[in-house]
């Protein structure tokens, strides 16, 4: 049993997402930074489907009634167990009646707390992820509040002990991010010059960066004609260019359909970087080919395999 002492700014239960219901308008939800979530699950020996807690900008605090193996990955929100600092990107044991407290994020934006066995909330439409807009999943479909009690599940795959992730597998949240992009599907709604400029420009992350998407600010991306299309599907990473010409990148809770031109998509392997971008950080886009995007996915899987190897000897 885990009791919420302090809820933080926006803390939700998330897993790998609610796939299979977008045809009904149901957002996918799931962890914004799937890399940090998966590593936290690996560090506790959890199944990749296990649910974790996603903290945003400001950390939460919890009391554990039992001894518990836990792991923290993602943004640097200094964690302390009974006042003693614990390393980010590591797993550690919280003693019985122990208190785990997180500070405000110093670097990055979202931190993932995994407990061995996963957070046990009811599975709704195949997932434990919270979609606050639809009030579905997680803890009563909402962010955690003070006093909320969470239970630990049994989503374990292999034995695990307290370990630290090697530096090579820890991303640096520098505040200046380069995101790789595959053009399409509506790149024809922009001139070649506009597309070239899009890839040469630097964009600033605004303060409108919730789980639905990231609004950026910078040189206007001008449409050849109009901005709207007959509404069609959207996906995580899709870069919508609405009539104001400012990029709006779809994230975990994005609407399943939308009516603005999409110039391209941030590749899946780079979405975890964007999930850690904070207001004022800078974004540059880099045009790549599909093959490189797939290699990036393979590299991500290799990281998981290597980390699993250090945990499960």
């Amino acid at each position, binding site marked *: 049993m885990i009791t919420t002492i302090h809820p933080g700014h926006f803390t939700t239960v998330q897993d790998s997402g609610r*796939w*299979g*219901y*977008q*045809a*009904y*308008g*149901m*957002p996918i939800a799931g962890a914004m930074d799937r890399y940090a979530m998966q590593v936290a699950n690996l560090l506790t020996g959890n199944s990749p489907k296990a649910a974790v807690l996603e903290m945003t900008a400001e950390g939460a605090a919890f009391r554990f009634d039992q001894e518990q193996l836990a792991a923290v990955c993602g943004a640097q929100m200094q964690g302390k167990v009974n006042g003693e600092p614990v390393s980010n990107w590591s797993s550690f044991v919280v003693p019985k009646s122990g208190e785990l407290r997180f500070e405000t994020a110093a670097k990055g934006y979202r931190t993932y707390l995994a407990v061995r066995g996963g957070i046990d909330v009811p599975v*709704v*439409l195949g997932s434990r992820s919270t979609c606050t*807009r*639809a*009030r*579905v*999943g997680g803890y009563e479909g909402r962010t955690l509040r003070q006093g909320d009690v969470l239970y630990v599940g049994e989503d374990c795959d292999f034995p695990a002990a307290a370990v630290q992730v090697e530096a090579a597998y820890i991303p640096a949240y520098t505040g200046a991010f380069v995101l790789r992009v*595959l*053009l*399409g*599907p509506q790149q024809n709604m922009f001139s070649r010059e506009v597309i070239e400029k899009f890839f040469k420009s630097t964009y600033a992350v605004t303060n409108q960066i919730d789980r639905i998407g990231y609004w950026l600010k910078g040189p206007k991306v001008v449409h050849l004609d109009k901005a709207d*299309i*007959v*509404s*069609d*599907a959207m*996906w*995580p*990473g*899709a870069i919508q260019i609405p009539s104001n010409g400012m990029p709006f990148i779809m994230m975990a809770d994005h*609407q*399943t*359909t*939308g009516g603005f031109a999409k110039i391209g*998509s*941030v*590749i*899946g392997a780079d979405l975890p970087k964007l999930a850690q971008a904070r207001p004022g950080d800078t974004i540059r886009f880099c045009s790549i080919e*599909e093959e490189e*995007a*797939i290699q990036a*996915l*393979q590299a991500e*899987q290799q990281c998981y395999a290597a980390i699993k190897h250090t945990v499960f000897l």
Partner: protein
Amino acid sequence: MKDDTNEVKLLMAGEAGLVVEFEAVISPEINGLVQQLMKLLKHNTLAGIIEVVPTYKSVTIYFDPLLTTRVRLTQLIEQLLCKIEPLETKCLAARTVHVPVCYGGVFGPDLEFVARYAGMAPQEVINLHTAKPYLVYMLGFTPGFPYLGGMSELIAVPRQEKPRTKVPAGSVGIGGNQTGVYPIESPGEWWLIGRTPLKTFQPASDDPFLISAGDYLQFYAISIEDYFTIRREVESGNYLPKVSQIS
């Protein structure tokens, strides 16, 4: 599908998505092609396909590029496109979902306004709104929100400039030449003419969504007494929605 295959575009939706786009117009004929492809994909799937999302004029396929390839997926789609009947909507056996609505009063605070704007009596608005079944082109915006087609232009009203921050679940509204029902409480800029006692989205149910893309939706008027009777049946799980088949 001989003549129209050339018109179909296969577009990139990131490394894990493929958009099959028919002609970019809103019409029952084009949406019929979308629905046909959806049915074909249901019975001819491929390992690595995660999910398939229909819209007005496209089908987006989400896949795991580490389990399958765009090339293999494209081959499958090209095979299936050959089986599609060109611009034929009658070949699809569709369902009609009948949705009771209590029009006007507290549930439809904007009915009077819509009637004034349209220059007719409120009852005429109701008559026109319930006159025929509407095609569910797609779902989106919020879970279970239907994009309906076919509403009479006579009762079209421009959207409200300032959206209401909270539209109650079940509200039936008109925005431009579109009409629909709000499955969950959400912001909304449509004029509210009534409310249904049905829950079109019930996440905890085995059958969470009342309406699917490709269905028809037929509104019918009920009294406020019927509203509460049906509501009680819905709450206790005893209400069986009226669904008829068109073939």
